[in-house]
């Protein structure tokens, strides 16, 4: 039960539809942990890049862009159904567009991962040959592990929500999953820029 009591307050503040409860705060702090990890990885990339003569080190060549361009577009597109999930979770209304949005996010995320996983061998990335390949393994690996975890999260929400009302705990879980996916989308833009674009102009 939700309460907000101010004795003698003429207009008690209404409790928010979904409070920023402990879980929400826990997720925000977890995202900062992940952002800190991402920063360390990005720092490692540019630190090692600045010490190299040619980049990527020969015989590796500049990575091809069109596959990852499509994959990145799909990933950015997946933010749309995620927003739908987020809005639905905040209001607590399940049903309607929610199942379709969850399915769309899952499909787009899975398609992104499939294209990317095909992209690395096609670009002849070899973590054991040179440090560029090693960095691709670290940065993309970090990203894809998080992506897989959130896709599992979407599936759990899809399986858990029944009927046309979400219970508060389901609302909170869906909001957390949506926030996590925003991180996955945003961090990919940074990672893709770093791995795919910087070799072309630096």
């Amino acid at each position, binding site marked *: 039960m939700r*309460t907000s*009591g*101010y004795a003698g307050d003429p207009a008690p503040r209404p409790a928010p539809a979904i409070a920023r409860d402990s879980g929400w705060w826990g997720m925000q*702090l977890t995202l900062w942990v992940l952002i800190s990890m991402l920063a360390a990885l990005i*720092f*490692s990339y540019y630190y090692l890049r600045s010490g190299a003569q040619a980049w990527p080190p020969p015989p590796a060549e500049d990575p091809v862009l069109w596959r990852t361009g499509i994959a990145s577009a799909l990933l950015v597109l997946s933010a749309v159904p995620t927003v739908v999930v987020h809005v639905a979770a905040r209001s607590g209304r399940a049903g309607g567009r929610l199942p379709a949005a969850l399915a769309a996010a899952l499909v787009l995320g899975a398609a992104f991962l499939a294209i990317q996983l095909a992209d690395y061998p096609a670009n002849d990335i070899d973590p054991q040959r040179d440090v560029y390949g*090693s960095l691709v393994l670290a940065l993309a690996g970090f990203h894809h592990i998080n992506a897989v975890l959130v896709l599992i999260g979407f599936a759990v929400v899809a399986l858990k929500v029944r009927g046309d009302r979400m219970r508060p705990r389901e609302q909170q879980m869906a909001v957390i999953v949506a926030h996590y996916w925003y991180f996955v989308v945003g961090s990919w833009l940074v990672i893709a820029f770093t791995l795919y674009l910087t070799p072309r102009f630096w």
Partner: protein
Amino acid sequence: MTLLQARPGTEDRLAAAWATPRGLAGSLTALNHKQVAQRFLVTAFVFFALGGIQSLFMRWQLGSAESTFLDAQTYNELFTMHGTTMMFLFAVPVGEAFAMYFLPLMLGTRDLPFPRLTAFGYYIYVFGGIFLYASFLFGEVPDGGWFSYVPLTGAEYSPGSSIDFWLLGVTFVEIATIGGAIELVVLILRNRAPGMKISRMPLLSWNVLVTGVSIIFAFPPLVVASVLLELDRTVGTHFYDPATGGDALLWQHLFWFFGHPEVYIVLLPGLGIVSTIVPVLARTRIVGYSLIAVSTVAIGILGFGVWVHHMFTTGLPQLGLAFFSLASLFIPIPSAIQISAWIATLWQGRVVWKTPLLYIVGFIVIFVAGGVTGVMVASVPFDQQAHDSYFVVAHFHYVLIGGMLFPVLAGLYFWLPKITGRMLSERSGKVSFWLTFVGFNLTFFPLHITGLQGMPRRVYTYAEGTGWETTQALSTIGSIVLTTGLLATLGNVISSVRYGERAGDDPWGGETLDWWVSSPPPAYNFRAVPEVAGRSPLWDTRPFQPRYDPSTWQQELLEPPGQVRQVVLTSLLDAVPEEVITLPKQSWWPLLMALFLVLALGGVLVSVYPLSLAGLLGAVCVGIAWTWSREDGS
């Protein structure tokens, strides 16, 4: 402070909801913050003892020139395990453990916000420690120092699995520490008693808040660094291999980006303990509450701008060195503000010379001495001379033992009566203090001189006639005195549990809410959650009208709908009661999650990757079950 009285007959329902089931299963699935924090405390002190024993072996070896007590390899293993144990397995966990036990009590709430994460953090910490120490059984003890510099720790120069034990064990402990930090930050932000505005919360919570935020930003880079090194060692990547485009200095940057905030992560809970004990034993309110809180935040921020002062001798550009030297010279300012505030508080009050206060005063003396040598090594030219000498060893033991161990011992004498319900012996406590204080200074002060005379650190022996014999022998004698002092405290703790005087609820005339509940506290901490009206709830005598209508949240907390564990969430800054939520009561998932992660990383260690895969899959399944189930008994 106001509260609603419980109606007779409702206590049992509350006690039943918060009771931990008996038996092995009950204790393995226990989630209550006091129970888990007690385990954390005991385990941390066991690791402290192990780390201490290792240092005694090293001191014996160094007590005389050309000693053959230890060989070079054993010495390397001991100093690696000593540093790793003290930093990762003792200093950080013990600070978090104190906070996990006492902050919910001081903030007036019933439990930590994520009880299952508390338990998971403990298991993963213990398994990490066991993992590290299991290396002794396999004869593959880590020997690359607690800083584990590459290329020494790369696959080429450390081909065995000793460094893998270090990397995987330390990664476990990092996960535990990060989990604990998230938990404590959310606790401080959302679980304070109604009315305990952020400007009213105890200073310890400011310190733990800054510690928690520092952990959240400082530990992940070390996780990244460790994973990259493990990839170099097992997969054959090239992050730290200069021959193929990697860079050995990358490790040092990532390690010290963690390593220097780590020093403050260790230190700040200690400073918080000091800020808690000083006003109580000076019988007056703390001087400069806001200044102390602001300087705590300043230490946390500055701590991220000084990591390169560990790398003054690595050949970085002069401009960078100048910047980091300047930043390092700023750090003493907020520290000095706090020390001035404590001295002013003691000056103003009527001081009660009990053992905790002796340890506090010892802390001030030692910490200031360590701070002064810190200013010296912050200067680049001096550091380049002293860097690899015993001077630095003396400096950081002054700062860490002075800044962290002494406050922790003060905290032990101060708070153990709350945990066990029995007082520690004052006489034995005073003897232990003087032995510890004299022993500490006898051990570490001569090391300054040894260092200035040119003795390099991290060497297992030295030639006769170097002139270092006398000071090294003094240090060894000092370490024996220091150990005697610590053993006196241990004996005091053990005998007090059985024979100690009954403590009562509030033996010190305390200021904060932890002294308002019985000793030991009931499982639910507070039957009626107090509404707080000032910084010193137990010292506030002003009549106070409750501001928040207690009929909604308080009634629900007092008479829960069934056997559920409830806490009230309050708003971020003003602590307005917002919501009553239920917490999990008991759970197997934390233990299972930790076991699957051990399986996953153990698979990496023995290079049986299907095992790792099974562990990861298991961990994902447990994670789903964890989020799926409420386990709150509703």
